[in-house]
């Protein structure tokens, strides 16, 4: 195993910790303790394999794949049957999003927010959720939806406008 450069790994950690945590937290029904355990394990795995990571090629996809596989293993081990997305970045309907929103103890405002989000079309909902809640950049979203970054930005702007009109 090669020696990961501390500075590089620290930068990698600071860039991705929030995104990975949100990804996991959302999928374990807002269970903070479980999310923290799983995220710790994900980053331990990432550290072990950091020598194979190339920031120019994989950006956040590498760590998200580790997180996704780790979550899948966790559910398999626990023999859980909760709905999980086939692909975390899939543009289809995301039942886990609704499931998590219902499971958590939400304030009235946030419940209203999810109700409004449900009224958007799939792509708009995907862009707003991933950009504003999960913290993905427009370029990352554009990549997964096969569109340009500008198109993603315009779609997000329109979606927010639409949400405002729905209030």
């Amino acid at each position, binding site marked *: 195993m090669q020696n*990961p450069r501390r500075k590089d790994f620290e930068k990698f950690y600071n860039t991705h910790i929030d995104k990975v945590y949100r990804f996991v937290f*959302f999928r374990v029904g807002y269970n903070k303790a479980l999310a923290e355990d799983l995220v710790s394990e994900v980053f331990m795995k990432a550290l072990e394999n950091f020598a194979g990571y190339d920031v120019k090629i994989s950006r956040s996809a590498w760590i998200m794949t580790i997180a996704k596989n780790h979550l899948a293993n966790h559910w398999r081990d626990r023999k859980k049957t909760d709905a999980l997305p086939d692909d975390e970045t899939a543009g289809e309907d995301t039942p886990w999003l609704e499931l998590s929103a219902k499971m958590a103890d939400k304030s009235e405002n946030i419940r209203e927010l999810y109700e409004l989000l449900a009224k958007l079309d799939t792509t708009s909902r995907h862009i707003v959720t991933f950009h504003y809640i999960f913290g993905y950049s427009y370029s990352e979203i554009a990549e997964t939806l096969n569109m340009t970054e500008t198109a993603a930005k315009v779609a997000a702007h329109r979606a927010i406008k639409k949400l405002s009109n729905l209030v």
Partner: protein
Amino acid sequence: MSLKIRYNLWQEKNQISPDSKFKADLWSKLDAKMHAEYGTKHSWFETRAFKFAAAAAVFILIVATTGTGAYAYTSSSVTEGTPLYPVKQQLENLEEKIQLTPEAKARFYLKKINRREAEVAQMNKTQRLKDKITKVQDKIEQEEDNLANVDKILEEKNSGDSHLRDEIKQRLEKRIENRNSVIERRLNNLEERKTLINNKLNQLSTESD
């Protein structure tokens, strides 16, 4: 309305974000693992404590050298109950956090005690309310406790700075003297009261006779 939507989205994002303690703890674990497995060493200037100390030092420098901050920090007329006193205290709290060694902490507590004493003198001069003065005196006691704790560390460490140790010793001796004089004063007060009561009782018994 767009603002409300954006605010709710931001709020939800914050709610599902990890807290800073968890992030710091996890980084410590990863760092320890890296160090144990690969011997990855990091320079002292890369440590979190140093980064925090450096940031706090810059902040103190900026606030303490600009107008109101400088006045609040340096003036002994900024005392308990004045509007600028919270600014002074916050600057001192930050200054306390950047004292990394026991020696630096001891020097800082000595300075803090002197400043509180100057404030008490100022408050006595301006005849401030007694409860405010008592509050500052309680703070002096607290700083003296901190100083005594640091002194124990220096003793265990057998610190070579004899001048500093002497200064601490003097300060702590002064504390004992102050406490003794307070006790003496209280005893005198009690004696005076006792005499007064006895006199009253004698007077009453004479009257009844």
